[in-house]
């Protein structure tokens, strides 16, 4: 360790980010016996919330209170020193210091758990008087805006740009509130990167059945805010004229954009930590600096099918990784080596999304390499795509699957099948040498 600000004082664990990764790091620190200072830097002034629930909140399925997984009383038990509205401007790894607008704070160990931000890559600047910022969905603030749009009777048509999970949950929220929805996506199918064409097509048929207009293989070329041509509807006297890449022009009341996610790492000085697509971490969630750990959407950690370090940005991974970091830090501050039992075991990519009663589940890889074969089983209710890999000893193992079910409800056999196949992938992946 260099001559640090923290080394002369009692240990301080700093957690940057107050979401699931950060809170689970704090919980693990406390349950592992660490009694020192935990300073949390949050860029908002709310309790930690679940970004997964933002679309549910926007559509009225969840109340605002339900979006906060931890109560103030629970969090108080963790004795955290929380700095609200304290965006971290700089992480000075060499000097073990964190800078915010409030000042500079020392740390002994640091956990970065700042999550990611939805991007609007490629969305054109909106022309016309008044301009327009598209709707994105990640934060509670974003959700409040979407909620307002969904409650606004003057909004009838919504254009959802992007075909990822977030885009589809936004689409569902719109459908649930009776909006007419058009989805535009640059790829030929929905469920970017998670679905193979055969399963995506079935999902798309389901969307069409709910009246969704699909513009796949297209992008938005231009957007112009214009005065409504007909009489203003419920006070709305403007609309958005959208030109698509194929030359079509159509009119919408609102546009939601989900063009990928970006890890929130602007405060990390270039070259101070190893960053590929995100922070590269070891099995204890340690970055290239032994006193800086990371969890959640900001890390590339072991992915079991490929054996490579990848971003698998799902809530549970953030929670598990945060806990791994917390346990490892607690051990180190107690002068011990972190226990291999508490190491991050890796994960496989898995996604489940339901839009109305159309269910999509995927796990593992979707890459069809020369040693992999695709098998499709289809019946009236369900399409399942299996990706098998030929193992050296002549065996073949399941390394990925897609499942689409047209009419599923919670607890239905489709979920059971998805879980069964996921378990098969996990059990084999865990035993495969990286």
């Amino acid at each position, binding site marked *: 360790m260099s001559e640090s600000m923290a080394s002369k004082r009692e240990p301080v664990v700093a957690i940057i980010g107050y979401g699931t990764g950060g809170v*689970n790091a704090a919980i693990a620190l406390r349950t592992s016996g660490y009694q020192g200072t935990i300073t949390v830097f949050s860029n908002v002034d709310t309790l930690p919330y679940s970004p997964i629930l933002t679309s549910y909140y926007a559509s009225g399925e969840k109340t605002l209170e*339900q979006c906060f997984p*931890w109560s103030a009383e*629970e969090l108080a038990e963790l004795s955290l020193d929380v700095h609200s509205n304290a965006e971290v401007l700089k992480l000075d790894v060499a000097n073990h210091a964190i800078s915010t607008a409030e000042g500079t704070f020392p740390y002994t160990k640091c956990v970065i758990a700042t999550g990611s931000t939805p991007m609007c890559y490629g969305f054109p600047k909106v022309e016309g008087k008044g301009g327009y910022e598209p709707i994105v969905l990640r934060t509670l603030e974003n959700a409040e805006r979407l909620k307002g749009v969904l409650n606004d009777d003057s909004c009838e048509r919504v254009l959802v740009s992007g075909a990822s999970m977030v885009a589809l949950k936004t689409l569902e929220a719109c459908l649930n509130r009776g909006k007419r929805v058009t989805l535009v996506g640059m790829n030929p199918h929905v469920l970017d990167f998670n679905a193979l064409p055969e399963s995506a097509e079935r999902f798309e048929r389901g969307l069409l059945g709910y009246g969704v207009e699909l513009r796949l293989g297209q992008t938005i070329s231009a957007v112009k805010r214009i005065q409504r041509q007909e009489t203003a509807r419920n006070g709305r006297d403007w609309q958005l004229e959208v030109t698509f890449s194929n030359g079509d022009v159509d009119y919408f009341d609102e546009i939601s954009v989900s063009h990928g996610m970006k890890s929130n790492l602007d405060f990390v000085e270039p070259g101070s930590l190893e960053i590929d697509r995100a922070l590269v971490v070891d099995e204890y969630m340690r970055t290239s600096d032994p006193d800086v750990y990371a969890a959640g959407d900001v890390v590339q950690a072991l992915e079991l099918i490929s054996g490579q370090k990848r971003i698998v940005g799902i809530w549970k991974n953030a929670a598990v990784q945060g806990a791994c970091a917390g346990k490892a830090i607690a051990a180190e501050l107690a002068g011990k080596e972190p226990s291999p039992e508490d190491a991050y075991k890796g994960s496989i990519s898995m996604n489940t999304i339901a839009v109305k009663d159309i269910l999509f589940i995927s796990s593992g890889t979707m890459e069809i390499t020369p040693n992999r074969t695709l098998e499709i089983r289809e019946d009236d209710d369900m399409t399942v795509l299996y990706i098998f890999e030929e193992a050296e000893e002549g065996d073949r193992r399941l390394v990925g699957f897609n499942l689409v079910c047209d009419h599923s409800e919670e*607890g239905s056999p489709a979920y059971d099948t998805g879980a069964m196949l996921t*378990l098969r992938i996990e059990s084999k992946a865990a035993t495969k040498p990286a």
Partner: protein
Amino acid sequence: MGLLERSDAYWRFAGQCTQCGHCTKACDSLVKADMTLGDIAHALLEAERTADSADELRKNIAMNGQLVQAVRGCFFCTQCKNTCFAHNDVCDLIYNARVDFQNLGLIPRDTWSSVLVDEEWDIFTAYRAIHGIGFADLTRHVDTDYAPAETGFDVAFFPGCSLAAYAPQLTREIFETIEGFGDSVTMLDSCCGSSLRSAGFFDRAETLCDKNVQELVQSGAKKLICVCPGCANDMRKAIIRCAADIEVISLPQYLLSKGFVPKNALPDTPLCISKSCQDRDGTYLEQTCELLGVDPSTPTIFHGCCGAGGAVSAFDPDRQAHQADEKLSFAPEGSTVVTMCPTCTYTYAFRLMSAPRNLTNKHYAELLFESQIDWEMNFYQLNSMWYGEYGQWLAEVFA
């Protein structure tokens, strides 16, 4: 932090749940409780936070009817986990909660006193003793009055409590078949401890499984053949825990590897397969279909718990009956319901005797082997043993 033994687990689960509510919709008990995985964990933590003593904690929990419903109404069927978008293991949370419930005296003794399968007498050993069912000649790795312990076995056979007690002939026939393939075999007539786990005796269940593993290690067997997927799951975990070099395989997998040909023709009636909730990865179902020469997509398959899981019958017997009835309602009229777990076979047999339907109920081993299970006799014997010469003794032992 302190009054609950498992509070670390509740913190962990509270942090892993997104509160989306999909798990709730997948489970009647969670619907009744109106709780998610996260709600259960938070409720336990709140009960602890607002209590100064174990007595207060007990009262806090007992007064929370929703929490009691969620914890004691769980079949451990994993339907909630299967539906959870993050695959959070709600059952694992409930197991932990049952431990705390047991520690706090929130699970009445009369609901578990007869299923302490790590003690000398439990309902299965008592049934076997009273009705003269023994396997001393098959448990060859054990030192007995009749023969010294042997070692160096190729495989060990684990029929599980229900099969050994209610189907002794079938158990013997399976054992003899294994031996007939030229494998030297011994039998563990112990239990995997699932009933202990359901009652909240988590540590005792693990100790029992670990003891089974020690027996296996001493026997020298490198493979353990399990009839029931639930036993296989628990023994697999114990083997990993004990770092033993033993492979757990299903009976169907073993039979397939030996080229076994079923001794019975398939029934004339349509097959309807109950995929046991313990058959987590579906291998028992697939391998059984392969043994029977049945395309897995041909028979009707219904998923989920038969109602026997989690000792729910001790908390809400109507729910157990309702669950069994609901599952059986998936079976087409006149079909043969094929179960993977002998306890499912027992549960459906009991239900079909109480509320007859035009269904035949078979464990998969009954389709493969000649010996059949006589449920009428079993239920008669189970009932009568409480009234005969052993009645008083049983009442005292299980008081």
